[in-house]
């Protein structure tokens, strides 16, 4: 049986008087693809931000990859993010004045040493070998998201987090991105946590949990 890469116990996040995430106990085994579903404001992005070390919980415990994230300093969390986590955002955020390959190399630079050949190879893996020197403004939404995927996997993370990564894509691009993620996960063996409110996208995962008003209300295993 796989060890848990994520373990939360009473994980809570309050923003002033608003409780975005109510005490949550969650275990995610290594290598699992977990889909997180819920309406807007249900707490799914809050959970992703906490697990990715982008935000700090108000209460409870949170261990990711054996690390107690509550014990890490600001720079410790930054190191955790660059060494253990790959993040894909809905808005496919990129640095506008850098080319596709440079955007990928930037993640390498923060991690250790940039390697252009490796960055090119990552972009070729996501089917963008012909778009290396293009800047974000010259790429389609689907292409930009594939650059973000290449950037997310370039440092071989243990955990890949997607915050509605297909939210801004058409159906064809969505299928393309999901297939790409599936292939990469099969090769790299990373754990995936995918926040979505698209049932079809959630179905690509091994398990889906449903949040409502900050509470885990249901979970189900995906057939097949």
């Amino acid at each position: 049986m796989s060890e848990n890469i994520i373990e939360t116990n009473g994980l809570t996040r309050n923003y002033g008087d608003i409780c975005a995430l109510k005490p949550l106990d969650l275990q995610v085994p290594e290598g699992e693809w977990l889909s997180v579903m819920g309406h807007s404001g249900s707490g799914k992005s809050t959970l992703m931000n906490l697990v990715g070390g982008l935000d700090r919980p108000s209460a409870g415990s949170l261990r990711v990859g054996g690390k107690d994230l509550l014990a890490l300093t600001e720079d410790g969390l930054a190191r955790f993010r660059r060494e253990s986590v790959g993040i894909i955002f809905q808005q496919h955020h990129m640095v506008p004045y850098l080319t596709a390959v440079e955007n990928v190399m930037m993640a390498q630079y923060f991690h250790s040493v940039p390697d252009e050949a490796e960055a090119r190879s990552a972009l070729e893996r996501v089917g963008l070998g012909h778009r290396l020197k293009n800047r974000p403004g010259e790429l389609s939404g689907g292409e930009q998201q594939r650059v973000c995927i290449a950037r997310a996997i370039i440092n071989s993370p243990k955990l890949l987090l997607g915050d509605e990564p297909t939210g801004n894509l058409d159906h064809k691009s969505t299928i393309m991105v999901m297939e790409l993620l599936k292939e990469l996960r099969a090769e790299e063996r990373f754990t995936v946590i995918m926040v979505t409110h698209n049932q079809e996208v959630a179905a690509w995962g091994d398990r889906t949990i449903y949040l409502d008003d900050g509470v885990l209300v249901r979970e189900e295993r995906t057939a097949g």
Partner: protein
Amino acid sequence: MLFRILKNSFLKRPKAIFLIFLSIAMGSAVATAFLGIAGEISHKMALELRSYGANILIEPSAAEGGGFLREEDLPKIKTVFWKYNITGFTPYLFGIAEFSAGGRKERGVVSGTWFTKQLEVPGEEFSIQGIKGIAPWWEVQGRWPEDADEAIIGASLAKRLNISSGSDVTTIVRGGNQKFRIVGVVTTGGYEEEQLFAPLVTVQSLLQQQGKVSRVQVSALTVPMDDFGKKDPTTMTKDEYEKWYCTAYVTSVAKNVEEVMAGSRAKPIWQIASAEGALLKKLNSVMLLLTVLALGASATAVSTSLMASMAERSPEIALMKAIGADRFQISSIFIGETLIISLAGGVSGYLLGGQLAELISRTVFNSTIASPLWLFPTAIISAFVVAIAGSIVPLRRALLIEPVTVLKG
């Protein structure tokens, strides 16, 4: 990679970069110009102040009986270590005399002095010494004496004798007399108005004190006195004494002169030296204050430009943090950008500041100025200081950016 990030950032944001560059270059230029002319202004002001009178007085030392100094020692004043700082000197030989003119008789002082003495010292530059050079504020109605029997007379003494230019005065001293043709009446506002000034050699002969002088007034360019300059040199260590001796304090220049004049005691005329020192010190303080204000204004402009730039770039910063950049890495990108701009701003500031200093020097002092080499590193350092000072607040803001808030879909 850092180079690529910086290069692309510069190329893609030329307006923002140019504004920051301009702020730094202007601050550096003003600082360079002010610091460049500060030394020149001090020098020019010191020269101007020299027209307010001698600042060193050489008298016979009490140990030598308080008698006379030797005229033959005077050329040695132009051979001392600080000879280039000595802008002029003149000897005096005093005697009490009775003046007789047009039937009137009055007692007063006859002073033998140099008016415009051409001084040639072997191995040294030719110079003109005398009272005309060190007391330019004297108002002479008439002209300066040129011949051995010509004299000028103080306005007060002339009034008592009821004479003017063109009159003859007989000067009577114990054992002799000398007739002088008055060629000018001098107004000084001081005790000199009770005296008659005649060529030194004539008065020496009249007083039967050939080759002797009573005192020498010296006008020297000096630096403002500070606590170290005021120390008693006899209590100094060898190193301290060397430093003191090699600094143009009025006391060290006086000591320097005293060493070549046999049997002399040289002392600063403090009311002149102190006033000069205080004025020059104030002038330097004003220049320094203006420089600091210019740099402060420049840093504020840099800070404002950077704040606007940071606000525009917050998604970029948030993204960098989200993918793992720590505070040091974020800082190195933005400080790197600012330092490169400040280097360019410093070089431009140096070139611009040199032109500005030249313009000020030409307009105010009617002279050219050579930019000293130390101004280049000064310009670069002042640009760095402006850049770093202007970056502190924007960088703090950048480091406080929360990716979760900024990148929220």
